[in-house]
C-alpha cells in the first residue's frame, strides 16, 4: 500500500488537496486555486485567487453572492489540465451543476464524488458512473437506516398535508438551493391545487434554474404578499434559518414541516420541533453509497463528510475493497 504522503489527493486543514495540481477541492479556507463541486455555500469560501467549476455552478454562485469572482468554467466530461494533471467534471446528481471531480495522473485515477445522489431528479443531470482506482465518497447518511422513499411519494405526502388543511397555512422548510426546486418539480406532478409562495432566496434560485433551462413551476414571491390572510390553505416554502417565532408570528394558524433526509428518524423529527417531517434527500443513502463504490470499480475507497465508522467496518468485514482513512492533521 502507498504511503499517505504519496497519495494524489490528500487531506489538509483547508480541505481536500491535489498537490501536483496545486488545487484544493471545496476548500474551507481561502486558497490559491479552488475546484468547486457545487454551489452550496458550505462548499464555497470567499477569497480564493482562482475558482474552477461547471458553468451552472458558476452562474448560481455568482447569483448567490451577488458579485463577480475569478471563476473559470468547464462543461461536464471536458478534460482540462493543470500542471499535467488531467481533470474533469462529471454529473453527481446532487443539485443543478453539481459534479464529481476526476483526476488522472500517471495511469492512476482518483474520483471525488462530492455530494451526490442516485435517485431521479429532473432538475439536474443524473449521476454518471465513472470508473476509478481511488474513490473519495461522501458518507453523510452512512447507515442502513437511511433508505429514501421515491420522491413522488414524498411529494404526494406534502400535497396531501397541504390539501387537507384548508384552514391552515402550511409552511414547509427546506434548503433554498436544490431541495426547493426539486420539491417544486415533484409537487407539480401531483394533484396539488393550492397557491405556492416562496421566500425571496428560493424565488431567486427558481429564476436562476429557469435561466439555465430547467422548468420550475411559477410561485408567488412571499415578500410581495400584502395580506397574510390570503395565505390560508396555501403552501409557503422557507429556508430552515427562518424557523423561529419572530419570523413565523404573522402566520397565525400554521402547520410546519421540514423536508430533509434526517426526518426519517423519529427522534430527530420530534427534536426538530416541526409538526411534520418529510424524508427526502439529495444525498446518497446507504444502498446508493454501496452501489456507487461497486460501480466505480474502485480498489480503494475513502469516506469524507459524515460519520463513516459503520461503512468502514462493514466494508472491511466484507473484504471486497480496501478502505482507507485520511490522516487528519489539525
Amino acid at each position: 500500500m502507498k504511503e499517505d504522503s504519496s497519495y494524489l489527493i490528500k487531506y489538509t486543514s483547508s480541505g481536500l488537496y491535489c498537490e501536483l495540481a496545486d488545487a484544493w477541492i471545496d476548500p474551507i479556507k481561502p486558497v490559491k486555486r479552488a475546484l468547486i463541486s457545487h454551489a452550496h455555500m458550505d462548499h464555497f469560501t470567499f477569497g480564493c485567487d482562482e475558482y474552477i467549476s461547471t458553468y451552472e455552478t458558476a452562474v448560481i454562485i455568482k447569483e448567490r453572492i451577488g458579485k463577480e469572482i475569478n471563476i473559470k468554467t468547464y462543461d461536464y466530461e471536458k478534460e482540462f489540465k493543470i500542471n499535467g494533471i488531467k481533470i474533469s467534471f462529471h454529473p453527481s446528481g446532487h443539485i443543478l451543476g453539481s459534479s464529481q471531480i476526476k483526476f488522472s495522473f500517471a495511469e492512476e485515477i482518483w474520483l471525488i464524488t462530492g455530494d451526490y445522489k442516485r435517485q431521479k431528479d429532473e432538475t439536474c443531470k443524473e449521476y454518471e458512473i465513472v470508473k476509478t482506482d481511488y474513490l473519495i465518497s461522501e458518507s453523510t447518511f452512512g447507515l442502513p437506516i437511511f433508505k429514501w422513499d421515491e420522491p413522488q411519494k414524498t411529494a404526494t405526502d406534502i400535497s396531501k398535508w397541504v390539501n387537507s388543511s384548508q384552514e391552515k397555512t402550511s409552511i414547509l422548510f427546506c434548503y433554498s438551493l436544490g431541495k426547493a426546486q426539486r420539491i417544486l418539480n415533484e409537487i407539480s406532478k401531483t394533484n396539488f391545487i393550492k397557491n405556492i409562495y416562496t421566500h425571496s432566496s428560493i424565488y431567486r434560485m427558481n429564476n436562476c434554474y429557469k435561466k439555465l433551462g430547467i422548468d420550475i413551476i411559477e410561485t408567488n414571491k412571499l415578500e410581495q404578499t400584502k395580506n397574510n390572510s390570503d395565505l390560508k390553505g396555501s403552501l409557503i416554502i422557507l429556508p430552515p434559518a427562518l424557523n423561529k417565532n419572530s419570523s413565523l408570528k404573522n402566520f397565525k394558524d400554521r402547520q410546519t414541516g421540514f423536508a430533509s433526509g434526517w426526518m426519517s428518524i423519529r427522534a430527530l423529527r420530534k427534536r426538530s420541533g416541526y409538526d411534520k417531517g418529510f424524508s427526502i434527500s439529495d444525498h446518497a443513502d446507504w444502498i446508493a453509497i454501496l452501489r456507487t463504490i461497486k460501480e466505480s470499480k474502485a480498489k480503494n475507497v475513502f469516506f469524507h463528510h459524515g460519520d463513516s465508522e459503520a461503512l468502514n467496518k462493514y466494508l472491511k468485514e466484507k473484504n471486497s475493497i480496501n478502505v482507507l482513512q485520511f490522516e487528519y492533521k489539525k
Partner: protein
Amino acid sequence: MSLKKFSELFIDLDSCNSTNKKIGILQNYFSSNEALENSWTIYLLTGKKNKRFVSGRSLKTLFSEIYEYPLWLIDSCYLKVGDSAEVISLLLRNMITGKNIKYQDVSLDELLNKSFPELSILKEDYKKLRVKEIWENNPIENLLVINKILTGTFRVGVSIGLITKSIAKLINLDEAIISHRLMGDFIPSEESYKLLIDKKINPSELNYKPYPFLLANTFEKKIIDKSINDFQFEWKWDGIRIQLIKRLGKVSIWTRGQDLVNKSFPELVEKISSIKDDFVIDGELLVWDFKQSLPLNFSLLQKRINRKAPSRSIQKSLPIIFIAYDLLEINGEDQRDSNLEIRRNSLEKHLYNWLNESKEELSNIFKISDLIYPKNWEEVETFKNNSRDKGTEGLVIKNKKSIYTPGRKKGLWWKYKVDPMQLDAVLIYAKGGSGIRAGLYTDYSFALWKDGELIKFASAYSGLNNSEIKELDRWIRQNTIDRFGPVRSVRPEMVFEISFENIQISKRHKSGIAVRFPRITKWRKDKLIKDADTLENAQKLMLNK
C-alpha cells in the same frame, strides 16, 4: 377493525403538536371503530403495563439471525435512532421491498390476543419463522407499530388525560367519571370499552377502583398574601403516594402509578382487614425507622415494592408504615365534595376509633399525617428549611376549603420543597441518550475530588436546555479520551452545579455516597476543575443534614 387503522392513528398523533387536534383525531378514531378495537387502542396508548412479547434486545437478535445481518451494525443504528422497534422497522425496508404481496389487514385483537401471545410458547426456530412471516406479510407503514407492540413500548405523547378528554367529549360525560373508570387495571374487551362509554353511571362499577389522585402544585409566592389560617400544613414525605381502599371488606393498595401492590405489603393488608369500616384513604407509604421515628432511604422502599410476597424477616428488617393524609370515602359514601377541614376531622375521628378498637397493633403501621402549625409565613419558611431534620423533603400546604378533585388543579394543594443540596462536579463520562435524545450524548457522569483524583459520584440526565445539550454534545465528541461501547470518557474540563435532594452512605458506590434525584442546575463555565467540590465537602453535607 384493523391494524392499518391503528397505524394511521399513530402517524396522525405523532405528527401533530396540538392537544386539541390530538383530541379531535382520537374522537374521530373512537367513533368510527369497533368497541373491542377501541379497548385495545386505549390499552396500547395509555401503555403503562403493556405486555412485552419480545425484548428490544431479542428483536434485534431475531432480525440479525433471520436476515444474517451483523448485530454490531444494528447497534450502531440504534445509537442514532434510540428505539429498537424503530431501528428494526427502518432496516426492514432494505429487506422486503419490491415484493408483490397482497396484504391482509388484521385486527388488534387478533394480534394482541392470539398471534403475539403464541410467540412466547414457540421454540426459537419456529419463533424466527413466525416473526419473519409477520414482518413480511405486513405493509412497511405498519411495521413500526407492530414492532412497538411486540416490544411493549408504546409511548407517543398520548397521556391518559388525553384519552380521558376525548372519551368524555365523545359521549358528553364529565371527565372525572371517565378518569375514574380508567383508573386501575383496564382489561381490554368489548365490555370494558362499552362500560367506559356508558352514559349511565352505575355506583358499584367503580368498587375496586381508586379515585384519581389530587396532585399538589409547586409553591406560589402569591399565596402568602392570604391568611395563614386558611391553610393546613403537613410534612412532604418522600415515599410512595397510595390509596388504601377497603370496600365490601376487601383491601386494595393502589399506587399513584396505578399499580396494585397488595402482594408487596401483606402485613398492611392483614392489619387493615381487621378494621370494621369500609373506606378509601389517600396517604403515603414509607419504610420506617421506629427507633428514631424517621423514614428510611427511598431505595429501601423500592426494594420492598419489588419484592412480591416478602418473607417475615424482610417485613421485620424493612418495616413499613402508612401515613394517612385524607379520607375520600367512608362506608360507601364519597367524601370528596366536602371540604378538607371536614374530611380531616372525619379522618381523625375514625382513626381514633380504629386504633382503640383494634386488637392488632394497628398503630405500628397506620399513622395520621401530623399537622404543623406555623404562626405566620416566616415560620413556614423556618419549618420548610428544617424539614430534613424530620426526614422529609419539605411541606405540603393545603387550602382548608379545598375539595378533592382529580389532577393538578390550581389553588388547592401546594408542595413547598426544601432547597436542594448542591455540589460543583466535573464531567467525566457521557453516554448516548435513547428515545427522543438518540444520537446525542445526554447521560452524564460527574466526579468530585479526593486526594487529587476525580471520583465518580453521580449521574444526571436532565437540567440542560436544548441548545446547551447540543453544545455539550459537540464538546464531548471533540474531547473524547476513550470509548467503551456507548460510553465516552471525556477530558475533565467542564464543571457543573449538581443539585440533589438527599445524600446517604452507600457501600455500592466507589465514592461511598449516593445522592437522590441528582440533576444539573448550572453549567459553571466560569469555574476551573480545580474549583470543583471534594468528596469531603459531600461528606460534610451528610453530617450537617
